[in-house]
């Protein structure tokens, strides 16, 4: 049985990383976390062949999350990106545009239901 792709979580809130980490872990995923854009990019650079999914916050203290997403898409197109934000809504223009231009693959607003995470994963990476 092939190993499930690893998930990278980038959110400046340590507790948010903790929550996502636990949810995904209990779903059977291996996770890595970063609390800044710089740290996240470094992890991607090192681990990209093994990373299949990226949970990404938009408001990061050092890098704009949307810029992070477009950079990741460009260089590591195999990584599916789910934006997770307390700032934007699903119908915010930036989110709509991002989804339409495949800048990222899913959007989840904070606070979220665990079921939303599950269905987002299901949509972008149908179970093998």
């Amino acid at each position: 049985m092939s190993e499930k792709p690893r998930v990278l979580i980038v959110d400046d809130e340590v507790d948010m990383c903790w929550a996502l980490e636990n949810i995904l872990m209990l779903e059977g995923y291996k996770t890595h976390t970063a609390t800044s854009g710089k740290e996240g990019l470094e992890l991607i650079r090192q681990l990209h062949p093994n990373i299949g999914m990226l949970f990404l916050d938009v408001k990061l203290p050092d890098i704009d999350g949307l810029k992070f997403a477009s950079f990741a898409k460009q260089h590591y197109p195999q990584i599916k990106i789910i934006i997770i934000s307390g700032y934007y809504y699903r119908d915010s223009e930036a989110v709509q545009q991002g989804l339409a231009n495949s800048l990222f693959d899913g959007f989840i607003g904070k606070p979220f239901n665990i079921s939303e995470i599950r269905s987002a994963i299901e949509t972008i990476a149908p179970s093998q």
Partner: protein
Amino acid sequence: MKSTDFDNMSLSERKYERLCTMIFSCIPSSLLMFDRNLRVVIANKNFLEKSRRTEYETIGKHVDDIFPSVILQYTRLSERIRTVFETGVGDRGREMYYRSPGLPTRVYYYNLTPLVDNQGVVESVMLIMDDITQQVSLREKVRQTERHLAGVVESANDIVTSLDPKGMILTWNNAAERISGYIERELLSKPLTSICADTQKATLVSIIEGLSRGKTVKHIELGLKTKTGKIIPISWSFALMRDDAQAVVGIVGVGQDLAERRELEAQLFHSAKLASLGVMAGGIAHEIRNPLGISSAAAQLLLEYPENETLRKECAQKIYSGIKRASQIIEELLKFSRPSEGRFELTNINDAIMETLTLIEKQLVLMRIEIKKNLDQHIPLIKVERNLMKQAFLNMLLNAANAMPDGGTLTLTTATDGKNSVMIGFRDTGCGIPSENVDKIFDPFFTTMPVGKGTGLGLSITYSIIKHHEGAIHVESTVGKGTAFTIKLPIKKE
């Protein structure tokens, strides 16, 4: 004059006669001398010019042939001259309007003077007319100006009062009556101090003493005790009235009722505060949604995996700390949005800045704005309306953030000169203000931000708040380099 008369004159008499003729011809008054038959004996040059008559048309003529009948009728000139001949008593101080053919009406002030011979009989009567046309028109102008001034004073919205140099009330205008409840009659010759708030009487006394020594006073706030005993804040400006010799003859006081303005200002401050909350709404939502998201996720994990002991404990902790954080943010917001109570309290300015910063610090960090704090730890406490001051600081922080859309450094400085004032500096490394806009930045609704980004009220509200604290705000800016605002607040000694 007949030649025989001349021959009979002595030398001195002749000299005297020449002198008289000279005076007659050169005085700036019109002069006519009548004999008992009311015929003209002498007419001087001035009269002939003004009336456009020749000597030939005048000398020997009856008074009734000299003046137009209209004038003769209303001045009753012939009758008056006759009376002077009979009584020997002059008639003085009357006005005559005279219009020579082809000339505008002129006003004359005339006297009738009897000339008495050695036996006490009136020999002739002299009519002296002074042209007072110019004085009359000036007098009219003065009256008009006086009426205009009185109208201004009476219709003014502010108290206008004049006092004698000792501070006794001489006049008390309509607005003063309306504001104080006292009518002018009740206060005439009473000291202005009698209607001053008890606690400030000494201040007013020393102001009036200073005034009588030539010191003017502007915008001093004193409570006025109305007839019903209410204390109303009045902003007074006093100026001196001096006579031509520069001696102080009185004091003019203009007082503005601050109560109404205060109320309007408070309303404006409050609505602007709510508007600035609107600008911050996105950031605030983010701030609250994060702890909510964490709590919510933890609660769901708890529900789904109740048997996991370690997870259970962690979840409970995260839920608890998330809720605490969210309610702390809401608490700060409520504190901030509460209307100001108008109470000045001793405040550590550093604390006020730090409390304000908690509202948007996260947002600034997300905008990649580095905050440098350069706070004087020994800053003296000053009396401010804490909530208003925090509002002013928030506006300064938002303004700096807006100036640095691509991030930068915001340096917050507090300092003191030790005795008179406290300085608060906000220096950003943003876009700067073009020199043509520097004068406008404190104008209400002046904004360079797109609609919905800024209200355009921030800096003007800050300005009013600082003024309200009798402080000053100063700006220095270089386009492309950044802007430094310095707020100066007075340390007031009680």
